[in-house]
């Protein structure tokens, strides 16, 4: 279906993808410190910026969820 000639994502589907990507990214970035135990400095500035971006992606995704029938 996704590979049909006329398929296009809806805003809701895009929102869901962004929400999943945002939450997944947030966990993955925090996971760096869990996996790489013993790193000095805790959550660094680049990680903080990346965490902020993932939160933003998730929030934008949330705003798209109620719009179900419009193409993205």
């Amino acid at each position, binding site marked *: *279906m*996704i*590979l*049909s*000639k*006329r*398929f*296009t*994502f*809806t805003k809701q*589907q*895009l929102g869901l993808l962004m929400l999943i990507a945002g939450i997944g990214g947030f966990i993955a970035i925090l996971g760096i410190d869990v996996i790489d135990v013993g790193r000095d400095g805790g959550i660094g500035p680049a990680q903080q910026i990346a965490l902020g971006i993932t939160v933003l992606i998730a929030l934008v995704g949330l705003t798209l969820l109620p719009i179900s*029938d*419009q*193409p*993205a």
Partner: protein
Amino acid sequence: MNDQHSAPPLHTTVRVSDPALRWLSRALLTAALIVMIGYFLVYLVFAINLMHFPFDYDQGEGFELVDTILFSQGQFPYRDTNIYPFYSSNYPPLFHVIAAPFVWLFGNAYWYGRLLGFLSTLITAAAIGLAVYREGRRPTIATLSGLAYLASNTIYHIGPLFRQHIMMVMFETVAVVLLAHVNEIDSERRRRWLLFIGLAMVMAAGYTKQLAVATAIAIFVFLFIRNPRRALTWGVGFALVGGGVFLWINIATQGNGGYKPSAPMSTNSFPRKQWAYFACGLAYTVS
């Protein structure tokens, strides 16, 4: 799942009905237009003056000229930095290849590279104006949008230089303008042509400067959201052509075109004489 082809119209036009407001709107737009034309004239004079300036004005212009000269001689600038003249370029070739015929005609000079940069900014401004006009059908707003790009400090600073960055921006902008509504075109033949030209512009941007990778990613994400099948099909072709050109350059330059990183000077031994010069320089600086 949404199995539809056309997106709703993206623009709405707001008409001002009150005569006083309409007059105010026109007066403000005219004032803005005068200011932007003023900025453009300053930019034009600066660009012409810079084209007459015979020496490098930006630290990178000399490298760009050397790359162009090498291409005009049928040579690649991607060389081994361990061998004399210890020169290698880390920029893709398109800008220099476009400038190379000027070397044949006019010799070694900076003006034609600056002219190419300046013309690129004009084409970008026209593309921006066209895109804005297409969405709103307001010629004054479209003109202002194009002029606003030229009035930017960054464009004023780097637009008329012998640097490839601004040509990359031109290719990127034209690509985005061409591809923005490509999925809404019903005629398959026309859609394919526009996709081909638009993606060729992305490729040209990438082979002008590597920074275009961000635009390429954004464009393919956009195409994927609108039609995954089309994005994947064209994406495979794009990757094959782009990768093929890269491999060809890499093989033709014995790995100096990309895979083999330029060997930094620090990997060579530091001669004793050089240490002596370094010590003298340090002592002089301290004293």
